């Protein structure tokens, strides 16, 4: 199989351009492509549209891209763990499109799966429905929602092979598999890059067909937002 390995994060993001639409895997700070975000921060690009369930925190994740004013628009389900985000939003520097989480996940899945539109019940009767087609099926109302696709999708996996096959760990999986399929160029960073043949074909979460570039990331911080422990 073709070797999709690229040397590092800088090389992987070299052709990301001003005004591009980007997807970032992760839920909160769990499962985010830390290495790619760092490499993007070194680039002189702006006007980005970022599709990500959340927007990071002030000093980590996509929050750092916001701070550097690289982002024109966020498409997310839940944002604002982040003061700079709020400031830019109120000042009009930043545009935000808030989407119900399941609709966001399914719109991305549809983007990868070649389904331009589908009906979902989430948001019927709410301000999310404004301007959207509403249709009744079997006595229940649904909204028509469109697919989401991206110029580049950045995903983070636990293990990957050189053909781009990916395996995620725990709830760090979240949005990563759908985004891998919805990017024109999908860049995967993995904690461990292995030769083809080492991953069990039955246990691949993202088949390599969706991945155009892969590299082994370094120095994962894996910051925890809500460290919650029980007493023993």
């Amino acid at each position: 199989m073709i070797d999709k390995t690229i040397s590092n994060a800088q090389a992987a993001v070299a052709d990301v351009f001003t005004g591009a639409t980007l997807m970032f895997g992760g839920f909160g700070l769990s499962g985010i492509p830390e290495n790619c975000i760092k490499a993007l921060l070194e680039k002189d690009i702006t006007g980005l549209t970022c599709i990500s369930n959340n927007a990071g925190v002030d000093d980590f994740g996509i929050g750092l891209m916001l701070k550097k004013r690289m982002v024109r628009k966020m498409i997310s389900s839940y944002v604002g763990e982040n003061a700079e985000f709020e400031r830019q939003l109120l000042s009009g520097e930043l545009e935000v499109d808030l989407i119900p989480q399941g609709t966001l996940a399914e719109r991305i899945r549809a983007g990868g799966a070649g389904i331009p539109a589908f009906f979902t019940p989430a948001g019927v009767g709410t301000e999310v429905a404004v301007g959207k087609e509403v249709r009744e099926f079997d006595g229940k109302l649904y909204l028509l929602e469109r697919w989401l696709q991206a110029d580049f999708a950045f995903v983070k996996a636990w293990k990957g092979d050189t053909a781009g096959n990916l395996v995620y760990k725990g709830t760090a999986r979240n949005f990563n598999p759908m985004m891998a399929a919805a990017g024109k160029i999908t860049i995967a960073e993995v904690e461990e890059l292995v030769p083809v043949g080492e991953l069990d074909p039955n246990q691949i979460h993202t088949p390599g067909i969706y991945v155009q570039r892969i590299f082994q990331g370094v120095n994962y911080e894996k910051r925890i937002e809500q460290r919650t422990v029980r007493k023993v």
Partner: protein
Amino acid sequence: MLTKEQIAQRIAKEVKKGQYINLGIGIPTLVANYIPADLDVVLQSENGLLGIGPFPTEAEIDPDLINAGKQTITMVKGSAIFSSSESFAMIRGGHVHLTILGAMEVSENGDIANWKVPGKMVKGMGGAMDLVASAKNIIVAMQHCSKDGQSKLLKQCTLPITGIRCVKKIVTDLAVLDVLPEGGFKLLERAPDVSIEEIKSKTEGKLVIEGSVPEMVF
């Protein structure tokens, strides 16, 4: 008047054996503490897990294992991990039996408002709109009145709504109420030492009282 813990405790009595349940943030999270282990329920976390376990010890903490509130968690035996699209396929497809969540307002036809206050920073609806649009059974845990004394059980929601005609039952610090299919809050139980008169005075929406209204038993 019930404490938050008592509201959670009362809601736990609604849980049936073998159910798959999604618990929202706040009081709903506390419900888990009161569900008897022999009911064999499974807690779903919409970021991609069936089978939430207790919070981890320091040694068990894993940044790759969090709940929808971004808290570190553990898994019980028999858990399954999946993607966000699979998670909401599960929710949207009606496979989750029960959703318990907080609310800022509920209307007498079952509309719920819990995601946005005009004039305040909007953080987003997260998975709430998907949950309320799809769950077979939705129970709301909330205070009967807001901090400034306004009823939260209304004829119509005044805040931007999260979903329409979806709430089935409400447990507040004062009462347990069903939302009737034809509209209206049917008073089922009173909190200990709370009078029907007090509940009437604090419920703006249509209150339906039939027969006697027992005090809750814990």
